């Protein structure tokens, strides 16, 4: 079907009547040049992002290939990291464990604090305090992670040392989490510092989303005789669920990839253990940073493989988050 002539002039506005009018017809539209230009411009931006992420994935895959070929499946199960040894023996198991444990500790601390802070700023704080708190949180999100890491290393960890030692002394023996020969450079402390880094950005995003909760629904809850907390739990939190998940995922992304804090805090140990208060541990990011300098040919490839593993895990977690967000009853909020 032709609706335009060779010069671009419209020769016919009327579509040929199909044999069956109940079939949907094809929709066409003539775009202006400006519209076409902006479409191409925006599409180029989106395309660049996709190309970038593909290139990174490909680079990691090709770099990791020799190491993966050498180690095979044992790459996922081996604890030790001696890729340049004879014979080479290496795997991400310990690194992945450390990454997950420190990230889990970080998120367990981050999410409740971030949600509470966001709710306090939006719903409880006096108006004068609200403004300054909001900008303070946004400002904190902009502090480089190095500052947090140094602060954690020289201030927070020594400060907590007596408490951790006390906990170990109290619960040791019947709570494997609290057993430790020495404290300080533990996965728990690393997770704690990572939480400090993740809290501002997570809070900032969650606060922004929760502030969008429809006011007339909030008033509805209050008008029924609800308390402020009742309003929060029946209107604001259900509304903000996807935003809370989204903000937490950004925080988790930061936790998984955080290098400096883990590098500075952790006493290096390639092992898997439930004793999260005990010295020793390693994460993928800190492992790469530490081993990079001394790595030779296969060692470098092995580090690429570790990076690839982290890349894939982050990817998978974000996909999972998207699934969680999409499962919320979006249709009900039309």
């Amino acid at each position, binding site marked *: 079907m032709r609706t335009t002539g060779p010069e671009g002039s419209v020769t016919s506005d009327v579509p040929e009547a199909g044999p069956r009018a109940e079939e949907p017809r094809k929709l066409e539209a003539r775009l202006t040049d400006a519209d076409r230009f902006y479409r191409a411009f925006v599409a180029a931006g989106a395309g660049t992002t996709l190309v970038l992420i593909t290139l990174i994935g490909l680079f990691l895959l090709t770099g990791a290939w020799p190491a993966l070929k050498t180690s095979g499946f044992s790459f996922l199960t081996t604890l030790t990291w001696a890729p340049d040894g004879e014979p080479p023996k290496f795997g991400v198991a310990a690194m992945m464990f450390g990454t997950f444990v420190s990230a889990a500790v970080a998120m367990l601390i981050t999410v409740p604090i971030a949600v509470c802070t966001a709710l306090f700023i939006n719903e409880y704080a006096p108006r004068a305090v609200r403004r300054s708190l909001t900008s303070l949180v946004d400002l904190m999100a902009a502090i480089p992670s190095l500052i947090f890491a140094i602060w954690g290393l020289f201030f927070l960890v020594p400060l907590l040392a007596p408490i951790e030692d006390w906990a170990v002394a109290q619960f040791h023996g019947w709570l494997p989490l609290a057993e430790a020969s020495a404290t300080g450079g533990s996965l728990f402390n690393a997770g704690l510092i990572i939480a400090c880094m993740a809290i501002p950005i997570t809070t900032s995003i969650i606060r922004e989303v929760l502030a969008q909760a429809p006011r007339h629904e909030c008033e509805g*809850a209050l008008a*029924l005789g609800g308390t402020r907390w009742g309003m929060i739990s029946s209107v604001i939190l259900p509304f903000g669920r996807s935003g809370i998940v989204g903000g937490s995922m950004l925080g988790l992304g930061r936790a998984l990839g955080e290098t400096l804090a883990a590098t500075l805090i952790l006493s290096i140990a390639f092992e898997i253990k439930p004793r999260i208060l005990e010295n020793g541990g390693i994460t993928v990011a800190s492992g790469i940073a530490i081993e990079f300098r001394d790595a030779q040919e296969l060692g470098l490839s092995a580090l690429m493989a570790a990076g690839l593993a982290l890349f894939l895990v982050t990817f998978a977690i974000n996909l999972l988050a998207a699934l969680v967000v999409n499962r919320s009853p979006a249709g009900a909020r039309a």
Partner: protein
Amino acid sequence: MTVPEVDQSVAAEAAPAPVGGVLEGVQVSCWFGARKVLEGVDIKMDAGVVTALIGPSGCGKSTFLRTLNRMHELVPIATLAGSVLLDGHDIYGAGLRLTEVRRRIGMVFQKPNPFPAMTIADNVAAGLRLTGRKVRDRDDLVETSLRRAGLWNEVRNRLGAPAGGLSGGQQQRLCIARSLAVSPDVLLMDEPCSALDPTSTRRIEETILELKDQVTIVIVTHNMQQAQRVSQHCAFFLAAEDEPGRVIEQGPTEQIFSDPHDPRTADYVNGRFG
């Protein structure tokens, strides 16, 4: 839309004497920041009587309504003077708990505001959870409340469906049912039909008339016919330019519409301005 049957059991339950609270605004004045929007309003809203607040836009009638269940103070810069008495007790005093005031004086808003992610039944029962009240038979309360709001027959087979899927008129009646479920003494309605089609409007007006002996109703409306159809007492608000809103005249609805004392009231109810 099918015309729902009038529920006989509810009509039979109604006590001979009207129940519900007596609400009284005493010299109520309101400000937003430095701007005074309402001055010296005295209105008594009796049990068994539907009180209509009428007047052109911006005359302060919605503001007054929101002072009656302490929604006014939710606006950060809002302040007020005077008092509001519920059965003789000052709702702005320390004697009544804020949440208790709002439970006893329910409100239906201009825009239907059910909780969209909750089911229809959960919406009706939402007030129970919010006020921490327990009932023996939740399903029974849901059914009774929906019947009183005239919505039961339309939703009885989809109580578990999300409330967001209802039409605007149904959502508004769901909000009425939700308010009734916490057994309020007074029900405030802020232009409840302004976003609805004529059929839904008629349905809500029927609901108001069915409810008026069980709960004191105060309704803000821009619709003169509606005020005449549903109310027995009527207060006319007016704000002159750059001046706060005042009650120009109040009295039995019939008299306000047929024989108003003030020429401005006559002009307004006859559609000559506003």
